[in-house]
């Protein structure tokens, strides 16, 4: 399975990439919502999952989620917000726009893996020899 990590922080992309790489994902990256759309448009094999920050330059995460949901050809992509935005109204807005899950920064690797498990997206048994 492939994941697209959309975050303007390289450090955060690296951290999330390591967690998801360990969980068996092939990782794609983008630094903002517009770059993420460009990455998706260039793919012949779409990612199963996109992890999306909210506050980014150029195009924010909520706009990206809305754009992905607008396009029928991208309907199969599971969207998880990974963001510092912790207020309940923000969570409701993201879920209403089409996000499937919501993970608040700061988070632990275990919390992210738990979200993947909830989404049924753990391709390997994390922590077990592969």
């Amino acid at each position, binding site marked *: 399975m492939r994941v697209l990590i959309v975050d303007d922080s390289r450090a955060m992309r690296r951290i999330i990439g*390591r967690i998801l790489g360990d969980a068996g994902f092939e990782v794609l990256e983008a630094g903002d919502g517009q770059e993420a759309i460009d990455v998706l448009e260039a793919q012949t094999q779409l990612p199963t999952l996109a992890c999306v920050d909210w506050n980014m330059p150029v195009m924010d995460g909520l706009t990206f989620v809305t754009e992905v949901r607008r396009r029928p050809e991208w309907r199969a992509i599971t969207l998880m917000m990974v963001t510092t935005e*912790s207020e309940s109204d923000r969570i409701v807005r993201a879920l209403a726009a089409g996000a499937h899950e919501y993970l608040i920064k700061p988070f632990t690797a275990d919390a992210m893996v738990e979200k993947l498990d909830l989404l049924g997206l753990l391709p390997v048994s994390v922590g077990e020899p592969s």
Partner: protein
Amino acid sequence: MTRVAAPDEALVHAAIEQVWGSMLFSAAEPWPAGVAPEFETGLQAQIELRGDWNGRLVLTCDSGVAAQIAIAMLGVDPDEALPEDDVHDAVGEVLNIVGGSVKGALGGVLALGLPGVSETSASPASDECLVVAWRGAPVFVQVVPDAA
């Protein structure tokens, strides 16, 4: 117009502890009383809060401390020399997450800006800052309300 109180020291410290613990795998101990924190040159990260309270959070630390924070956050070899851009990015993201926690705890309607990081030789006024210890070195965090 300011409609919620400025983030106080306890709230900011709680946010730093949360971020230090989960992302940097370290405790955020208060700087020991009676010991003057020293600073010469380093990095300064800033992030704005806009809405029911207007101002910014400013994090300042020595360049070596910034590099150690980035190494801890990224989980790389302690002897690895990270590119300057990666150190700036990591310190900015640490403040971004602290800012998000502060924003969530403040209540009201607030928007968080994007972090900016620059080099500085201006020594923070430690009596106006929350100072926490990172492996024996000071990290200065200041809450700066907009001028009235």
